[in-house]
């Protein structure tokens, strides 16, 4: 004898409330736990440090592994970067430059760039690093 299964009861609509709940929770998580960043250069692998003082996400001068300077996604050089900084913020006191260098960049090249920035008129130069958990 052939047995036919009973017709399924009509599907009830999925409740959207549960979906919204989850999405809301994720939204709140990202709002609270993440920090908004200016776009970072993708192929620069930041230097990691353990104890350096905490800093804001950088809008920095990126230095790639080959020693090429980049700001806002475009190749630049020390003098024009410092000029642009001077132009955009009325420099009160010492001009502060943040550099984000690749960890494989030869240190001699790094010091060369620091020298060039100094010569171009930068006052305080700091290197942006990423903090690793101890």
């Amino acid at each position, binding site marked *: 004898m052939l047995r036919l299964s009973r017709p399924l009861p009509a599907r009830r609509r999925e409740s*959207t*409330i549960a*979906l*919204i709940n989850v*999405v*809301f929770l*994720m*939204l709140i998580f*990202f*709002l609270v*736990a*993440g*920090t*908004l*960043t200016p776009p*970072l250069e993708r192929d620069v692998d*930041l*230097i*990691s*440090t*353990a*104890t*350096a*003082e*905490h*800093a*804001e*996400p*950088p809008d920095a001068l990126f230095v790639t592994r080959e020693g090429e300077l980049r700001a806002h996604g475009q190749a630049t050089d020390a003098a024009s970067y410092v000029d642009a900084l001077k132009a955009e913020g009325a420099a009160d006191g010492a001009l502060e430059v*943040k*550099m984000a*260098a*690749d*960890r*494989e*960049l*030869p*240190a*001699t090249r*790094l*010091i*060369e760039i*620091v*020298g*060039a*920035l*100094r*010569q171009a008129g930068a006052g*305080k*130069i*700091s*290197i*942006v*690093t*990423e*903090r690793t958990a101890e």
Partner: protein
Amino acid sequence: MRSRGSAMRIDLAAARRRPLPLTPLIDVIFLLLLFFMLSSTFVRFAEVEVTGGAASAGTAAEAPDVLIRLDGGDWQVNGVSAGADEAVTELKRLQERGAARAVLLVRGEVTSQELVTAIERIRGETTLDLTVAR
């Protein structure tokens, strides 16, 4: 129900409230979620200040008390080769003897990572006034 002819008018019962449309709400929340997911980062940044560089002519006037050379994993403090740990103890000893200014020289194939690690270490464990040069 009242008969038509009665003098008193009673307002019609308010039409039954329709449920709030949820789709646009979800759309917006989804968009917000995507925005925050894509533009936030969980990397914690820090910064290390670099003093010196090739063009720091002003500091050259005063002779440094300690000369540190960094060459690969090798440190040389005032000409004496040492590992990183011994070098730091030596620096502490020199500091107790009254040294105040140190110059960090970089040679050869040192990467930025090693340089910054060294700077961070020296700054963290001693109070020497550190300048970087090539």
